[in-house]
């Protein structure tokens, strides 16, 4: 057991300084940018990060990384959070899959760029009529000699408008055969016939519907055997994130999957505290002295600490629901100003309460609904698969 402060080594201090400089030179903090998890690291920052091997910093230097440890990973995460900069860009879940199943051609020509982060990826799994049920995919790939022709449509292709490649689940046999006739491809997004239409979501984020019309690609882009896509797709889910990193007990408990949402909740609480500190009551005292305001803030801080003590998967539904609950409660505490957007006269901090109330429902859905997480958790408790 150890909750002590980490004394950063001089190398780590230099590392921190370097990232601060890199961000400052390439990014202007946008205070309205709280709901960062649907945005991707801005390209200038990414390219600088990639140059240094910091997109997948835990990979070895000769594998596109920088051979860094858990503390450096935490430094990166915390600094991106501090500067309100979206950090999503990692392909770390895909890299082992490409290493294991990718064609020789892919390994030689594409994997290196993905490892450094100069090339980016997105996921093409879900379709309009099968959100969670991926074995029902209907996007069809038909072999024609040494090429494949792909037709279909994918939902929720987040970053589909700004990625170099999509990790695409296709149907290569009868739909009725479910997971036995699926095949995976890594499709270049600039292939003719690939098109990404924006889908705007509550809170301001973007995802996409991607369309594939007679998209013709070489067999080199296939990942794994024909009709073995289910195994290939399942690989990332089986891979431990950051498994190669030396654990120094610094990361949130077992890497709570809700950590990102908890960081947002911290900002929400901070914004609410700043609102209260900057407002006075009729008797002239600070709103921070109002017992009801104090109780509301204390409860929000308690929920935040609760989330930081969650583990792994269960951190996801817990943090998502705590965020939604507190966005509502703090908006009420700060009503009516709590409903104002960023930049509006009188809005709170960065309009964070209003924007978080919009963003929160998404946190309970993307990457799997809270129901799916509860189903999973129930199964890990040894309960039978639910009806």
């Amino acid at each position, binding site marked *: 057991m150890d909750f002590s402060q980490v004394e950063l080594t001089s190398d780590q201090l230099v590392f921190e300084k370097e990232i601060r400089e890199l961000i400052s030179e390439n990014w202007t903090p946008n205070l309205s940018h709280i709901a960062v998890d649907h945005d991707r690291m801005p390209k200038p920052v990414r390219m600088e990060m990639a140059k240094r091997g910091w997109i997948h910093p835990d990979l070895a230097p000769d594998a596109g990384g920088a051979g860094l440890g858990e503390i450096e990973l935490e430094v990166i995460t915390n600094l991106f959070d501090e500067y309100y900069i979206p950090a999503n860009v990692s392909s770390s879940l895909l890299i082992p899959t490409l290493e294991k199943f990718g064609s020789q051609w892919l390994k030689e020509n594409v994997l290196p760029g993905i490892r450094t982060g100069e090339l980016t990826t997105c996921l093409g799994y879900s379709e309009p009529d099968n*959100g969670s049920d991926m074995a029902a995919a209907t996007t069809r790939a038909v072999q024609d000699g040494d090429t494949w022709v792909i037709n279909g449509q994918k939902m929720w292709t987040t970053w589909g408008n700004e990625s170099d490649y999509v990790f695409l689940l296709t149907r290569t046999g009868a739909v009725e055969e479910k997971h036995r006739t699926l095949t995976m491809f890594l499709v270049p997004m600039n292939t003719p016939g690939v098109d990404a239409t924006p*889908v705007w979501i509550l809170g301001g984020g973007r995802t996409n519907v991607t369309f594939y019309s007679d998209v013709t690609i070489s067999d080199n882009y296939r990942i794994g055997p024909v009709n073995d896509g289910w195994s290939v797709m399942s690989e990332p889910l089986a891979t431990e994130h950051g498994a190669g990193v030396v654990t120094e007990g610094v990361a949130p408990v077992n890497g709570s999957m809700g950590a990102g949402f908890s960081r947002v909740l911290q900002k929400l609480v901070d914004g609410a505290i700043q609102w209260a500190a900057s407002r006075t009551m009729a008797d002239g005292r600070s709103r921070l002295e109002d017992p009801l305001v104090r109780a509301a803030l204390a409860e929000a801080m308690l929920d935040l600490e609760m989330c930081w003590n969650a583990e792994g998967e269960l951190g996801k539904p817990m943090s998502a629901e705590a965020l939604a609950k507190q966005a509502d409660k703090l908006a009420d505490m700060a009503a*009516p100003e709590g*409903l104002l957007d960023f930049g509006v006269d009188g809005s709170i901090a960065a309009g964070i309460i*209003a924007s978080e109330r919009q963003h929160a*429902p998404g946190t309970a*859905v993307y990457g799997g609904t809270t129901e799916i997480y509860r189903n999973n958790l129930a199964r890990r408790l040894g309960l039978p698969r639910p009806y």
Partner: protein
Amino acid sequence: MTLVLRRNDYTLTDEQDQLVDMLRSLFSEQSAIEVVRAAEPLGFDQNLWATVQNNGLLTISVPESAGGDGGGLVELALAGIEVGRTAAPVPLIDHVVTMRLLAALKGAGVALDALDWDAALSGDLIVSMAPISTWELGAQLVPSGAVAKAVVAFKDGSIILMTRETNAPQAQNEGCAPVAWWSPSDADVRTATLLDGDLAAGIWELAHREWRIATAASIVGLMAISSEIARSYALDRKAFGVTIAKFQAISHQLADIHMDVVTARNMTIKAAWLTENEPAFRPELAAMSMAHATRAALRSTAKAVHIHGGMGITNEADISLFYRKVSSWALVGGGIRRDLDDIGNAIDRRAQELAASALISSNR
């Protein structure tokens, strides 16, 4: 000691049923979701407002003595529900509640020289009121304040009328409600004191209750339609080969939403009836109906979004629009915290009643 029993009858009269039918068909035809979207970000549609004007909806609940049709708060609450069901981008509730307040002032002999009464009665001049002024002086957010040119407020014990020639700029919000900052000290604002003293306080308090009830009703409408949309989606949507309505995790949420809609609706029309007919009886019911409608709508529309899975959080989904409206419509009045504070008056009354009761007593 004699028991006091009250009737507890929520049934609508035939006239009220007809009113609801008329409003529902009018708004479903004229306030389709495309109209609501097109009216954003301001949250106001001039054509729909003209329709509202032309169909005489603005005078339904205004006293006959003030040129209205003499309907009451119950009718206004029923109208509020229908406005909410389509998130109609018109300030019907704020306008009519304010007209009722102004009519009460007129009835008390107050001259309303600063106001073109006929224009207000017809709706050509939109009026609103500042619920927050009950607690706070100075600049404050006003519902429909970005479309109204006259706003009634309560300041230092007086009812005041603020007017301006041009519209106040909207204070942007996620629900795209036409909310705006108004302040008596704003250079563009002219302020006239209408009435002060106990009479002013009493008239304002009642008008504030009416605002809460009618606004609660509009929020009930948002919830009611959200409930229906979520139910339809759950019946249509399939996952793993079956309709998702078969999962308890979904169907129990729909049951919970339904409970919220029913209780919020009932509480609101009960509060309307009692405020109209026995304003001295349980004045806390207005704050209760607003507090319950707010908390119920916040959680219910969030559940309704969640039942839609990923679709629910897209801006193009109907359900996300109603979700966005709720917080703007509900919180502009000051939030549940202030409602609970006013419910507190009922605690003191109950404490008095109990002090006289012999049966139960504390023993330390």
